[in-house]
């Protein structure tokens, strides 16, 4: 018994691994393309070159100015020396090579997250490195929008199942007729929530991450963050609510008219079992694809929602970088976003490969 089960297991694992590595390669190619597009766009106005040159100039000037060995040299001679060194360094780093070569060089820098220094912005810990600024803000975005997407996912699933069971009921009709409300994006509902709960009723904060000054002990800190997260989370939940439930309901309804479901009903299986085994199970892969898409959508939507709620994540950083015209940060953010979206797709592919029997049995997906 065991002997026969084991090879099947390894074979399945092998298939999953092959599928995942194929996906990983294609996702990685996408990230490379996105980064390359970013660099081409940014450098059409010569911005990346400027960033690199400014960096070299600053570093070498600092080096010479702070070196006691050069203290005695007259200013103009020192300037000349510095200029010479800068030109040498530009040549050494290849900034005077043709564009194609340079762009490949920048691509490598981008992919290895070697994103350079910000022009004006600093991270909360005081670092000028773009990488630090962005990585410091990343967790807040992931925290807020993963939570929102997952809450939405379960509400829509449960609501859709419930309505497909009670199809035609009053509640069903209400949800169907309210579905058009979901064309308005989360940030738009956010403005109204701020208007009602912050500006009018004064019971929730306008925005931000925690109270000022931040509470000392972790529990009240957590509660404070929770209080600030209520409005942004609700705005996304309200925005997605009706259309999410409506789509799932229609989806389940279509599946529940399949012949095998009718057969199961005829066999007299309990409705719950039919729901779990005959409706939910086969619809799981497309539902998970939907989850992947909404997660990707949520990272993108974060830019505006965070701006509206002043939530210090990647989105607000994008807005601030735009205000300061801090080019290295804007370029860095696009690269990080490409990675974030790519990784999301990969993680969901992993889940997909577990739930989709076609992947396990090696059939074309």
């Amino acid at each position, binding site marked *: 018994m065991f002997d026969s089960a084991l090879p099947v297991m390894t074979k399945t694992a092998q298939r999953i691994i092959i599928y995942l590595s194929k996906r990983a390669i294609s996702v990685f190619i996408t*990230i490379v393309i*996105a980064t390359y597009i*970013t660099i081409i766009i940014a450098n*059409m106005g010569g911005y990346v070159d400027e960033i690199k040159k400014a960096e070299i100039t600053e570093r070498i000037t600092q080096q010479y100015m702070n070196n006691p060995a050069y203290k005695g040299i007259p200013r103009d001679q020192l300037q000349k020396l510095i200029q010479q060194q800068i030109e040498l360094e530009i040549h050494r780093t290849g900034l005077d090579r043709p564009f194609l070569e340079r762009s490949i060089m920048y691509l490598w820098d981008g992919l290895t997250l070697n994103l350079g220094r910000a022009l004006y912005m600093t991270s909360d810990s005081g670092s000028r490195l773009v990488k630090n600024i962005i990585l410091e803000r990343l967790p807040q975005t992931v925290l807020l929008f993963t939570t929102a997407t997952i809450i939405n996912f379960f509400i829509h699933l449960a609501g859709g199942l419930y309505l497909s069971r009670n199809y035609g009921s009053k509640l069903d009709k209400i949800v169907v007729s309210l579905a058009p409300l979901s*064309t308005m994006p989360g*940030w*738009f509902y956010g403005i109204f929530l701020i208007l009602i709960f912050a500006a009018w009723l004064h019971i929730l904060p306008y925005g931000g991450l925690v109270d000022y000054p931040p509470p000392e002990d972790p529990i009240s800190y957590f509660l404070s963050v929770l209080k600030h997260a209520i409005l942004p989370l609700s705005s996304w939940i309200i925005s997605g609510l009706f259309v999410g439930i409506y789509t799932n309901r229609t989806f389940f309804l279509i599946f529940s008219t399949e012949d095998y479901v009718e057969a199961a009903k005829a066999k007299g299986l309990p409705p719950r079992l039919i729901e779990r085994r005959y409706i939910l199970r086969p619809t799981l892969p497309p539902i998970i694809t939907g989850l992947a898409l909404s997660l990707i959508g949520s990272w993108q939507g974060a*830019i505006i929602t965070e701006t509206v709620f002043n939530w210090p994540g990647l989105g607000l950083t*994008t807005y601030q970088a735009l205000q300061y015209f801090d080019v290295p940060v804007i370029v860095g953010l*696009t690269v990080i976003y490409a990675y974030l979206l790519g990784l999301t797709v990969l993680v969901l592919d992993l889940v997909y490969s577990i739930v989709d029997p076609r992947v396990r049995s090696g059939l074309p997906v």
Partner: protein
Amino acid sequence: MNRSRVTGGIFKELLQYKSALVGLVLLMFLLIISTYAIFIYPGSKAVVYWRAGENMWIKNPKNALPEWWELFTPGKTLPRTIEINPNTKGYAMETLKTTNDGGYLINLSLSFNYEYDEEPSAINVFVNGTPGDNFALFWVYPDGRKIFLTNLTLTTESTNYYLSQDIALNTRLEMDLYKQIGKPEYSPTIEKILFGTLSREFKVQKGMFKLLVQGYVKDPKKTSFDLVVYGKVYGIAGTDHLRRPLEIAILYGTPIALAFGLTASVLISVIELVIGVISGYFGGALDTIIQRITEIYMIIPFLNIVILISVFYKLDLWTLLGIIIILSIFGSGIKSTRAMALQIKELPYVEAAKAYGASDWRIVFIYMIPKILPTLVPSIVLSVPGFVFLEAALSLLGLGDPLLPTWGKVLSDAESQGALYKGLYYWVLEPSFMLILTSISFTLIGFALDRIVNPRLKEM
């Protein structure tokens, strides 16, 4: 002929849905507003008005509420802006006599009736004359009380006296008030003191107010005063922080939003359709390439790249539209149109076309695309609001068209000026209301169309 009958049939069926009817009425309303806006702001007039700077609107109040706001303040009439100048009623100038050095002594009175329930938002006096002219300004209440305001000496031919911002005057008036009635129960601003009764509670003194000016001028013909008592409400939509009437952007934003949303959604859907059908019909390597590109497009950070492009190249709205279209044409719509193309490819009439020697392109464009197009109409209509909101979102980030007044621009100004903190709700509500109308109108029509075109949904 056959097709027009089909379209007519769909339209007739559409009218049977109450929701679609509401949607169509809203759409008509938006179209009427668009036509009206284009008619009253022809060419670039809206842009000129919107970007004219403060001088053009100097006689409008700042951040004034729309006039319909009075619905929320029952029994109260909110002040409108009152302007008294040589061309209006209530302006009287008399030249008293000539002085030894050839100058003149004049007496000026600018009187107006004030019947509102709140004090005005600000008071400005614009003076014209010759450099060296001297004036003394007095304020006369309806009850006859007269107080001295200030002395003015012209150094140029025209001077603006911002009465509300005169700190010295404010202090003096406050002190006088304390002396007469003790500590008042309201915080005494210049406007409240100048328009209130002499009591500890604030109440507007209604009746005829007068600004009296006694002056010594070189040339009375050149002398003119212009008193502006700024109201708290303005027009149908109120004004913003730069005194611009919001109705310009609210009205003119309508045709822009409709044009932007419709162009984006129609072009993207049609291009996706063409690509999807080509992919499905030809198959092979071309199909594989198109499918890979679609997968790549799914992961590319769309919004970031739009931001990147518009921040580096300062695009106008229509170039931005082009970029959004280019970045969207390999979207998820391709998958469904490709699937449909795969089915239609096998239908007998396509076989027949092949048999009589129709070229591949003829089959794609004349036989397949028109067959799939009607099924796309609901999704085209449904995706319009998404693009209207995309424009608003980009404006909110400060990346929209640098000149055009749009709803997103108004929202963005309101956000950056802290409209919600300051309680200026109308500033946020007006553009939002228009966005909601647009979005609801298109979705109601789109949902109904969806049921007509996809009969499987009809019974659900």
